[in-house]
């Protein structure tokens, strides 16, 4: 069982179908540094807050990764190969937490905060993290209920409060403290350290639940992660000005890899979806790429059906006539679905195996990517 001080990856076998990328971008850190140094993108993330979309510019993400990373290094004592867990649903701070650990050679592990307590306790005991990120007070409480089993845990950082300071540090305060560590010399050293991380070292982890309720932590090395990112980049072609929309209640490996891929390509702006607002947000943003659970995709795709009967003239009659033909009717429904998803999506990736209704509605209209993170093909 790996300990928090272990630097040996559990699984470093390259999977079939994923070709290792060039040496220059074979670690998460190098991908991130490359994206931050040479890019055409002004905004890396969007999230909905206060009644409008709030942006995170590229430069802010870069600085925050450095500051949070320096805080973890200098104040928490996080070393390369040690573990950091993230107990949170998808939100804008997720990418920051993930990168701050992975870029400097620590291992960031996603843990579903809704795991039953025994499974959560077992998973965390197995992982033995040095630091933990939690979304807020609820997730903190869950962590504290099993904290006895993780004696090596040094610090807990919460994305939002309110919290008593002795229970956890708030991310905004940590960034503030990290800000004064953020000097040119330390930032340079942080980047140099990121470049030195071995591609064979562990980068990311996630917890799998077995049918019997047992948990097992799976790891991906930097080389494996970047191979998947490159694969995603090839399937979801990158164009300047692209907008991606990501949503999901749990941060699945697919969702996480997509988030890293879009942030790392240096061109895509990623909108983090708000629970319950996917259809509205997709309709407003008109993203070029969508990653979402199948049920969300289906709900969004069936949102708006333009009333055919209202159209007059020859065009309206032609459309009504075409609707009587099954093939035309099917094509027409797919086009309506695409229109309901904003009309610009070139690539759609469900985060779980979609049922035939989703496949049927979307297939052929856009590239719907049914290849999962472990290489399994769903078509």
């Amino acid at each position, binding site marked *: 069982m790996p300990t928090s001080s272990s630097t040996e990856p559990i699984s470093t076998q390259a999977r079939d179908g994923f070709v290792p990328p060039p040496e220059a971008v074979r670690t998460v850190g190098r991908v991130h540094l490359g994206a931050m140094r040479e890019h055409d993108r002004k905004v890396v993330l969007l999230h909905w807050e206060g009644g409008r979309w709030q942006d995170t510019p590229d*430069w802010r993400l870069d600085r925050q990764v450095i500051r949070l990373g320096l805080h973890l290094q200098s104040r928490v004592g996080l070393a390369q190969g040690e573990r950091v867990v993230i107990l949170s649903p998808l939100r804008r701070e997720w990418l920051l937490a993930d990168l701050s650990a992975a870029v400097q050679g620590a291992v960031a592990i996603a843990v579903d905060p809704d795991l039953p307590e025994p499974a959560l306790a077992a998973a965390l005991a197995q992982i033995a993290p040095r630091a933990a990120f939690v979304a807020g007070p609820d997730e903190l409480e869950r962590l504290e209920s099993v904290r006895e089993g993780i004696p090596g845990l040094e610090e807990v950082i919460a994305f939002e409060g309110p919290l008593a300071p002795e229970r956890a540090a708030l991310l905004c305060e940590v960034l503030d403290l990290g800000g*004064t560590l953020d000097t040119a010399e330390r930032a340079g050293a942080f980047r140099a350290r990121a470049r030195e991380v071995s591609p064979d070292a562990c980068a990311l982890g996630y917890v799998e639940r077995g049918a019997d309720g047992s948990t097992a932590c799976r790891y991906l090395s930097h080389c494996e992660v970047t191979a998947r990112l490159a694969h995603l980049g090839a399937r979801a072609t990158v164009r300047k000005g692209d907008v991606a929309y990501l949503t999901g209640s749990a941060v699945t490996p697919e969702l996480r890899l997509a988030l890293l891929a879009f942030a790392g390509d240096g061109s895509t702006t990623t909108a983090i979806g708000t629970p319950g607002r996917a259809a509205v947000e997709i309709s407003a943003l008109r993203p070029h790429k969508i990653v979402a659970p199948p049920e969300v995709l289906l709900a969004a795709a069936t949102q708006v059906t333009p009333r055919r009967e209202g159209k007059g003239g020859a065009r309206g009659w032609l459309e009504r006539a075409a609707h009587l033909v099954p093939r035309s009717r099917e094509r027409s429904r797919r086009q309506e679905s695409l229109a309901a998803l904003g009309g610009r999506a070139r690539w759609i990736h469900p985060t779980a195996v979609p049922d035939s209704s989703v496949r049927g509605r979307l297939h052929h209209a856009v590239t719907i990517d049914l290849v999962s993170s472990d290489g399994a093909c769903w078509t």
Partner: protein
Amino acid sequence: MTKLDAVVKELANLGWRGFQAVNERVPDSPSPSPEWAPGPLLKTYQRTKPPLGWPRETDSLCPRCVVETRSAIIRGERDLAELVDGHVGEVKAHILEEGGRLVIRKACPEHGTFEDLLSIDPEFSRIVESRYYGRDFRTLGDEKVHRHGTSSIRYGRGAVLTIDLTNRCNMMCSPCFMDANQVGYVHELTLDEIKEILDDSISFKPRRQMSVQFSGGEPTMSPHFLEACRYAKEIGYYSVQAATNGLRFALEPEFADQAKEAGFDIAYFQFDGVTNEGNSHRHITNLFDVKQKAIESLHAADIDILPVTTVVNTVNDRQVGPILQFVIDNCDKMGGVSFQPVSFTGRDEDISDQDRHRQRYTISHLAHDLSRCFDGKLDPHRDWYPLGAMGAFTALADHLRALSGPESNRFGGLCCSCHPNCGSSVLLVANRRTKAWGAITQFFDMDRFIKDVGVICDTGRGKGLSLTQVALAFLRNFDARKAPAGLTLFEFLKLFNYKMGGSVLGYKEKEADWTVLWVGGMWFQDLWTYDFRRTEMCVIPYGTQEGEVSFCAYNTGVGWRQIVENMHSVARTPEWFNARGKHKIYAGDRPMQVPGKPSLKLPILQAGGTPRVREIG
């Protein structure tokens, strides 16, 4: 000059005179009242001026009384209200001409007589004062922001709003009016405080465009530098600059790109000489090499660079010529240079009288040194205008924008209307490729053009007629015979339009080959040269937690800096280092390590003035 140029000039002159023959007989139209202004735009005859000429009497400070009172307030023995409501250390001073020099002399009943030099060329000073365009609006609704007793700003919009983000610095220089690293406490603004200062700055009238200058200590050491740049742009300011030593940009080139993305436009760049020896008083032995690396990073990120040189007589005064030559030779990367004659404040307030007299350097010194260095190509009497003369161009820009409709009226133009003794400048044109250059006043009758601008603004005609007059004024004052080789009328007009924000031609386009270089002398006051008539019309205030304070009242004078910083200090320095970590300080006469080597070919003048091309890296 071709015959066509001569004909155009003469026709324009006739056209102007013919136009004015009618124009001046028609009553002046009322001035526009844009939303940002406290009233209608000022006619020239409505602009006031401070007392000028000599001999004259003014209000000043006793250097000893002020220091004693300030210390007592900081120790808590006397009340801050004394500074606001009282007349601490105030004495009358006389400005007079003696022995071919201008001097300021004052007497304190307790501490005796003090005297200092203001100018080595009274005729230079007289001409500069005569070219002053007049004061701007009085401020209105500014009680929250301007509340500093006799040190309060009373006139003008301001041109540069300085905000000290932190008093921490990564150098230990002498001179340093900040006294960074020596005061024993850390004064650093939070992001909320920065936002509040910026919000307050647009809360009263005249609401004006300013260049927001983040300063310190070293502003790039503040963790909020990037966010501060972004917020300044968000609330509507179009120019963000930082007074920086450039070390961060040399050490971390990525930071320059990020700063540009965040809204950072201009590096007001500390630059004391074109050799490492010329910078030796900054205590980093390879500082010039580091500066070159910083210039490379800033230029690559498309950030404008304005070198700033503190000139100290007998220390680096011989560098002024080589520095200007360096700027001309790199005019594709730099927009000019700001020479700042030393002000004995901060760490240098304890200077002995002997050293003060020996090191004193004035703008008149600068004008004559540059004239000598360039064999008379720059003329002290022809070429130097007070910074406040720029007010004429702002008045024209305000007038034209007001005629363009309400959408262009959220902010008044950037207006430099400071006292003529605060600073002077000369404008050069330079070709980025050929490096040909000349003073604008060599081929353009600036005196007459400013008078023409006054007529245009005073008569206040509609947009078409105003632009017609601008064109005629421009053409009649431009003498192509005397312009540098290759500078045509149209190129000069494009330069002028760009500097006016596009308000003449209706679009803003950067001229490709030619650029304007601003060569300025900004002479901040110290306790020996202090004049309240200057501080009350300061255009470069400090935005602080205690309102906007005149630059000189903050850094010297009664010492508002020490008072504000003590009131709002965050921690004692050792506590700060303990809790937050210590930043690296480059000092002790050692070299700095920077990543890589600068790869620019920078023509450098050796200390003796002989040019050579130095290939770096």
